[in-house]
């Protein structure tokens, strides 16, 4: 089961300069665990030490914020698209 994970530009350097990762995982917690294993510097930027996404990072599953689904327990399905969106402030 493969999901596509879009990496925002400020963090791509920490994901091997990739715009998109394809990960095999069953839920958001598993997805974040895979990122921690494969891209620890990326994980350090998007997750708190306890593994939860930081307060300025939103994770969207097919355009829905996972905070308002089942959080890190949100199930993922083959072909899902996950968007990692940080707060940016430039103007």
């Amino acid at each position: 089961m493969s999901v596509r994970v879009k990496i925002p530009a400020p963090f791509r350097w920490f994901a091997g300069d990739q715009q998109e990762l394809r990960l095999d995982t069953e839920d958001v917690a598993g997805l974040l665990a895979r990122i921690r294993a494969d891209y620890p510097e990326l994980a350090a930027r998007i997750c708190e030490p306890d593994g939860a996404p930081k307060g300025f990072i939103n994770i969207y599953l097919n355009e829905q914020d996972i905070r308002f689904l089942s959080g890190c327990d949100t199930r993922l399905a083959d072909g899902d698209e996950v968007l990692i969106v940080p707060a940016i402030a430039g103007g």
Partner: protein
Amino acid sequence: MELTKDEIVRYSRQIALPEVGGAGQEKLRAARVLIVGAGGLGSPAALYLAAAGVGTIGIADPDTVQLSDLGRQIIHTTAAVGSPKVESAASTLGALNPLVNVEAYAVNLDDSNAEAIVARYDLVIDGTDNYEARYVLNDCCVRLGKPLCHGAVLGFEGQATTILPGRSPCYRCIYPRPPGQGAIPSCRDAGVLGSVPGLIGAVQATEAMKVILGIGEPLSGRLLVFDALAMEMRVVQVHSDPGCPACGPLSRDGKVEACPSV
């Protein structure tokens, strides 16, 4: 007061839209919009709102024009380098449309002055360049019930949403906490392509006009996420946070602790 012949000619292309018409143009003329930040976002937003005939435009910015601003802050010209940004912006807007009343505030909006300034306007455009100012402006607009057209950019990416206090999520609902120092680079450090704030600022101006006119579907409860490199524009759903200290049911009229310095 009815539109003059000059106004009818100047705004004829938008008056021709059934959603605008003469009555809509009169609404725009009566409207008061505050633009906070005369930079990459505020420049296109101010130009489009002035061109469209928004009657009163307030501009707040404490800075002077720098040469390095000119790559994206298109309201300023080379001759204005060294001048206060609000004076430069007022001069450009006056040349574009002398029918618009421009009110300049050469100040940084903070907790001490935001409420007094925002209260004078119907709607606010967030063109600020730091997290602290964004939270101050959000909390102030929520407290006063003023619609806030949010926009932000970095590199090749941009975001926008329209906050309608009491009817949609606010900035704190979407981003409960600001990043720590250095967690997200600034445009000064990471750069920004000048046309990206141009696009997002135009989205903010469009949203402002829609809200004033009461037409279409506002970008509220939704966050536009733009990636210029991929040339993808996504709209994701955002939700009101029942625990939001600014707009949630437990908030005290939007009075929240100051955002931690970032």
